[in-house]
């Protein structure tokens, strides 16, 4: 049986024929498809009146197959109709086919579809518009392109979306398309001689191409793989490839050989980021922060974004000291903004204790973590790291001058008291052991509450709230 398609890319016609053949039980081997358009002459050749088609019953196929056909039909391969009908036939008769991603026919069809996609992509890449001013004084952008497959119709909407407010035309040997700012119009192929001559502005593009090339990195094979030779004759910049390639080696060698010249101008390095001298106590919190950013006394500093120093009023009644910044604190540079900080906020709000009435700080200034894939997992600072860091907190305390210190968790308690502290045993009371005379109140770190199982959390939270309430109410008395 012989099937002739008027238009080589008319998917609907193909579907009608195929459906009818399938309904009539015609096996693929008995069908000969002839759908190739001979450029321009096709329409006259088909003078026989088309036989009326009996609509075949539509057959259920995977939706992806219809999409695949839509792509494959744009391929130039004359065998594509036979392939697609064979696949349709097999989909109807072999139920297992739709679950086999490695079937030979299916992979062949995907290969054709891939070639079509590539051609569509290359057209989007390598069409070059030239500015043309018509007799009417109107400006148009015109391009000449030679695609491998029947892709002009399919690709035109892309150019319409991209160059909506521009009047343009793309001429190809088989089909031409024109956009007037509102609609797309198609017509038969054009002659190569209609290709517009270069316009005055093209030289700028050539200048750019010439100078963005780095002669020290010649990789011509790589370029050819992505921009095959057959596209070159329609790309203005391609004329530069040979001369640039030829001169590349000499150019890079001359850079290497050139004797050093005297510096254009000598000046002292610009000091945008002033670093305080080491060993000198910071005079204010700004200096403290800058110095801590640069601190590398332990390995943590090199991996973190920034040192997170405290924030709050000077000479407050309370300075609350936590353990160490976490992921969010590291990114924002502010203490207690992550989940633990939010829990502390909630607790303080419940107690009617304004967050900005206290100074919030951490014992260790940089975030310590371990990378798992693309996530940073918090790790507690080792004792020697906490020890190396302790002097920053001491400087901070003497600059801030709080009346009392509230240690949240064991790390903070140890940093403030200079000895290991069993938090559960010593929590809930003011301890008077610091050399500077400031009392220290010990309680849990909010993140300890976050780690508790759901059943235990409510009670532990209530007790922690009690602790905070006590710390808040008695500091004035305790510190005297």
């Amino acid at each position, binding site marked *: 049986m012989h099937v002739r398609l008027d238009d080589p890319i008319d998917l609907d016609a193909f579907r009608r024929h195929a459906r009818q053949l399938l309904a009539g039980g015609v096996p693929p081997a008995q069908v000969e498809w002839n759908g190739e358009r001979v450029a321009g002459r096709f329409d006259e050749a088909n003078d026989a009146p088309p036989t009326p088609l009996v609509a075949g019953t539509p057959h259920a196929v995977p939706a992806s197959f219809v999409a695949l056909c839509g792509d494959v039909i744009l391929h130039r391969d004359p065998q594509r109709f036979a392939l697609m009908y064979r696949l349709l036939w097999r989909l109807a008769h072999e139920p297992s086919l739709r679950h086999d991603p490695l079937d030979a026919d299916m992979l062949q069809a995907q290969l054709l579809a891939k070639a079509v996609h590539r051609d569509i992509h290359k057209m989007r890449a390598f069409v070059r518009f030239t500015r043309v001013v018509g007799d009417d004084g109107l400006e148009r952008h015109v391009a000449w392109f030679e695609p491998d497959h029947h892709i002009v119709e399919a690709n035109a909407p892309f150019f319409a979306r991209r160059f909506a407010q521009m009047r343009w035309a793309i001429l190809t040997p088989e089909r031409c398309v024109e956009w007037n700012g509102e609609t797309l119009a198609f017509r038969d192929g054009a002659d190569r001689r209609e290709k517009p001559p270069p316009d005055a502005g093209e030289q700028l593009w050539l*200048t750019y191409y010439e100078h963005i090339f*780095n*002669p020290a*990195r010649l990789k011509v094979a790589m370029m050819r793989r992505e921009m095959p030779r057959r596209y070159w004759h329609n790309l203005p910049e391609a004329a530069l490839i040979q001369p640039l390639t030829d001169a590349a080696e000499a150019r890079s060698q001359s850079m290497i050989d050139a004797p050093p*010249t005297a510096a254009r101008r000598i000046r002292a390095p610009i000091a945008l980021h002033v670093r305080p001298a080491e060993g000198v106590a910071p005079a204010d919190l700004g200096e403290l922060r800058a110095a801590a950013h640069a601190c590398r006394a332990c390995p943590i500093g090199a991996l973190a974004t920034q040192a997170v120093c405290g924030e709050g009023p000077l000479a407050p009644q309370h300075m609350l000291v936590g353990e160490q910044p976490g992921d969010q604190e590291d990114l924002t540079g502010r203490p207690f903004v992550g989940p633990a900080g939010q829990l502390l906020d909630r607790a303080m709000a419940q107690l009617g204790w304004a967050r900005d009435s206290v100074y919030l700080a951490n014992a260790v200034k940089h975030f310590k973590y371990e990378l798992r*894939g693309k996530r940073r997992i918090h790790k507690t600072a080792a004792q020697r790291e906490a020890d190396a860091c302790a002097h920053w907190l001491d400087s901070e305390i003497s600059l801030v001058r709080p009346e009392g210190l509230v240690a949240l968790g064991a790390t903070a308690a140890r940093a403030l008291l200079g000895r290991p502290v069993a938090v559960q045993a010593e929590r809930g009371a003011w301890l008077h052991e610091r050399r500077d005379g400031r009392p220290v109140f010990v309680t849990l770190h909010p993140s300890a509450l976050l780690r508790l199982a759901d059943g235990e959390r409510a009670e532990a939270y209530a007790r922690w709230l009690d602790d905070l309430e006590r710390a808040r109410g008695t500091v004035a008395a305790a510190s005297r």
Partner: protein
Amino acid sequence: MDIQRKLAILADAAKYDASCASSGSQPRDSLGGRGIGSTEGAGICHSYAPDGRCISLLKVLLTNHCQYDCLYCVNRASSNVPRARFRVEEVVQLTLDFYRRNCIEGLFLSSGIIKSPDHTMEQVVEVARQLREDHDFRGYIHLKTIPDASDELIARAGRYADRLSINVEMPTTEGLQALAPEKDESAIRRSMARLRLRIDDTREEARRVVPIRALPGAAPTAAKPPPFAPAGQSTQMIVGADATDDRHILASSATLYGAYKLKRVYYSAFSPIPDAARALPLVAPPLMREHRLYQADWLMRFYGFEHQEIVAAPDGLLRLDVDPKMAWALAHAERFPVDLNHAPREMLLRVPGLGVKAVERLLQARRVRRVRADDLRRLHVPARKVLPFVVADGHRPAAGAMAAAVPAAQPTQAALF
């Protein structure tokens, strides 16, 4: 100075920046607008230079005058290269003109630092503003941000740009201190953190907006929050200007990906520059090393490799003769051959020559039938590379096949460097 000459100088100055991507932004087009331009997910490489690099964006500097003196940089204050400076309108017109010719996907604008970081950043942002607001340009814009620019300027940059980047320049802090003493690594990191937070916040906000029905029967619409760098942020580090080994380079990248969710880290092999500083190695750029770093980076981002496990050699360098996945497989012979019919996804991804897509297809096929060796041929994977490392129905690699998988004659390192 005429525009041709300026373009020549300022493209020359930009050619050492490796980034070229124009993908991953929000889809948009110019239908119904006042101008031109579209982005549809994947970017397009419109041309290739003979150095094999894609030309997708007009990549230029606003000016190559710079007050800093970074030794690896051709634009450093003490360099004797010719200098030029575009006017804002000139860059805008060039971008539109090249775009109309269909030569580019958009603009990648960077600049030497003049007067002050804020002054420079303001000019860079003004180019993007004019393109977007005055010309309704909807193509891609990538702006290089200056680490010390003010928060307000960064916020504006992110409103106009699809992507923002800040180059870390050197893989290690020590490297940066030695070659660019005026740059401050922690300022660079703080800027990246700032960008990440803004990008995160904008995404979060966009997720939270509740569509509102304005009129009964009308489709609910949501007021979209203004975008902020929808294609994310990226960075570049120069490879081969100091002695840092690949292991440390990959560790730096992993840290950057983890901390700031970068879309890409670009590796730029240091290449001779005109009027180079004396402290630098003047040799041809280690292109193969750069290539291997990109492959290793790919393993971290898509194949589930941790940065510590990629470089096995005691010298801390990636092998130049085989790709890093092959090198890993050869160093872990005990984990192979992998059974294509039974191995978990993670292990299939570690087979040399099997890409992410091929692995997905194998897993799919496995659900309905057994996989045979000749299936690999249809998957279009390099069978010669894969077969020594896998078992499938009708195939079992011969003893010693893995070692033989290494291609024999390869250019030696000496020839490449």
